[in-house]
């Protein structure tokens, strides 16, 4: 959480002023003034809510076929708002079911990514010259391959499936966290307050947990929102290729690849899941940009703000 102002005033104050402390935090205020970022945040909340409430809000069971009602165009039937696919399955229901799959998959991938990247980032920054050299060379090697090519190579070896795919995506994106944590920690380590804390005898672990980690958190948050967007695209890409989610389960990527067979007959079967996926990624990018602009000392323009 936004550490500094809460730590100073909120720890002893009652709850109402904790809320005020959050809303008066400079970063939070800046973020709330950023209209595109707010729109992105609202859209993300809708996606999360839809995923959580999925069992109650589905208009139809996502795999229920209705062969008398195939290829219904979007916005023509009240019962099927976004139309039906080649098997008469309700597109809206499948979009919502796939939303749940996509968010869970992206969360898995980002968690794996952080579990690998963040500790190694600390190790590289604090473990001395040789450790740093070795970790960074390995990172260079991992990043010297096109991400999707690396993911496909690894999946080719360990075999397809959603869990495998998300672990692989987590590994592939972990350098993003590693590099950003390493840079942040190195910068923090050169600050005077770390020297001061060290000189009064703070043990290293305590120094990491209470002094360094909270200050390294903001760039990690920005990175997390951007990597989540990339993980969403990656899940859809791998499912589209048949290396991720297996049919009949719904996935935006799988819906796109199934709709591809009927591209000329009913192009909405491809365009609807494609647009939803793009909007989800756009929302994450807008939130990421907004976070960067509101907590970073340097804004996206390259001007100090």
């Amino acid at each position, binding site marked *: 959480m936004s550490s500094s102002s809460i730590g100073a005033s909120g720890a002893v104050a009652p709850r109402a002023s904790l809320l005020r402390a959050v809303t008066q935090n400079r970063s939070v205020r800046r973020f709330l003034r950023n209209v595109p970022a707010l729109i992105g945040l609202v859209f993300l909340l809708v996606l999360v809510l839809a995923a959580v409430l999925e069992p109650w809000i589905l208009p139809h069971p996502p795999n229920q076929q209705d062969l008398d009602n195939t290829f219904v165009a979007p916005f023509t039937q009240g019962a099927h708002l976004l139309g039906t696919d080649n098997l008469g399955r309700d597109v809206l229901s499948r979009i919502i079911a796939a939303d749940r799959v996509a968010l869970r998959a992206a969360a898995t991938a980002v968690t794996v990514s952080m579990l690998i990247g963040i500790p190694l980032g600390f190790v590289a920054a604090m473990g001395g010259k040789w450790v740093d050299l070795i970790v960074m060379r390995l990172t260079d090697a991992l990043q010297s391959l096109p991400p999707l090519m690396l993911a496909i190579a690894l999946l*080719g*070896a360990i075999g397809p499936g959603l869990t495998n795919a998300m672990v692989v995506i987590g590994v592939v994106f972990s350098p993003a966290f590693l590099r950003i944590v390493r840079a942040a920690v190195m910068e923090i380590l050169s600050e005077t307050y770390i020297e001061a804390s060290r000189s009064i005898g703070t043990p290293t672990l305590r120094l990491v947990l209470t002094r360094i980690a909270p200050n390294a958190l903001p760039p990690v948050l920005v990175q997390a929102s951007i990597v989540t967007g990339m993980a969403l695209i990656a899940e859809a*890409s791998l499912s589209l290729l048949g290396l991720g989610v297996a049919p009949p389960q719904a996935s935006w990527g799988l819906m796109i690849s199934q709709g591809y067979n009927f591209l000329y007959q009913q192009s909405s079967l491809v365009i609807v899941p494609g647009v939803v996926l*793009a909007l989800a990624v756009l929302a994450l990018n807008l939130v990421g940009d907004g976070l960067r602009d509101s907590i970073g000392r340097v804004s996206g323009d*390259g001007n100090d703000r």
Partner: protein
Amino acid sequence: MRRLLLRRLAATVPVLFLVSILAFSLVQLVPGDPAVTLAGDSPTDAQIAAIRDQLGLNQSLFGQYFSWLGSVLSGDLGTSLFSAQPVLDAINQRLPVTLYLVLGALVTAVLLGVPLGVIAGAHHGRIADRIASVITAVALSAPSYVVGLVLIVFLANRLQWFPPTGYVDLSAGVGEWARHLVLPSIALGLVPAAILARQLRSALIGVLAQDYTRTATAKGLPRRTVLLKHALKNAAVPGVTALGTQMAVVIGSTVLIEQIFGIQGLGALAYNAALQQDIPVIQGVVLVCAVAVQVINLGVDVMYGWLNPKLRAA
């Protein structure tokens, strides 16, 4: 400059060495006994033994690696477990198509990204900048295959300007060849274009605030000259870096785009190999991609020297 290049060339050696270990380890990642798994459904003992022999799984791990590396360095990437075609032949067959696609993406990125970035940077904070930032945000969020499918639906199917899928060789005529490459190149190049535009914009804003651009303006040079001759060349460095990274990403995206546009390139080769657990082919593609990325990085370094003479001495 030559010293710089030699040093960068030397720096690729440890990276390629580590990638070779990664590619080699792919066999070890196969669950269970690799030879049994890779031999397919209900294999005979002879088939398993043949695969074990082909992949050199009888030797110690060290022995396996060095004999594998030895044959790789002598140009033998092994043979496919399925088609029995030498991996190097398969790659040589597919590589040109993918190279054309990556070049097409590069052309798209430059043609769209440079004007967008320059307009946004030169009109910093004004309406043109806002519009450009909306365009780049949307382009960054649309996955390449969604763009590709939308292009097929509208430009190929409805308007019939371009063929929807397929690829024809250069020998069939430059015109037909180019027409088949346009749509996949746009699909691949849109994200790099957006990233290039963003980098150029923020670098231009920084450069335009510097003294020497003010001097150039003060001595009466037209704004166009200041912008395009003085500012752009100096602002291009971060853009070139970003383009280099993006071209590496594009090599990966060809897997999807080749699938959608029905093109038999390196991406399709990697994809089919992954579906069939054809490890030698996967290893070959991984190695070729790693080399390609290093070549791109060297190209970026050469561009640096050309754009900014200060970096040549380094």
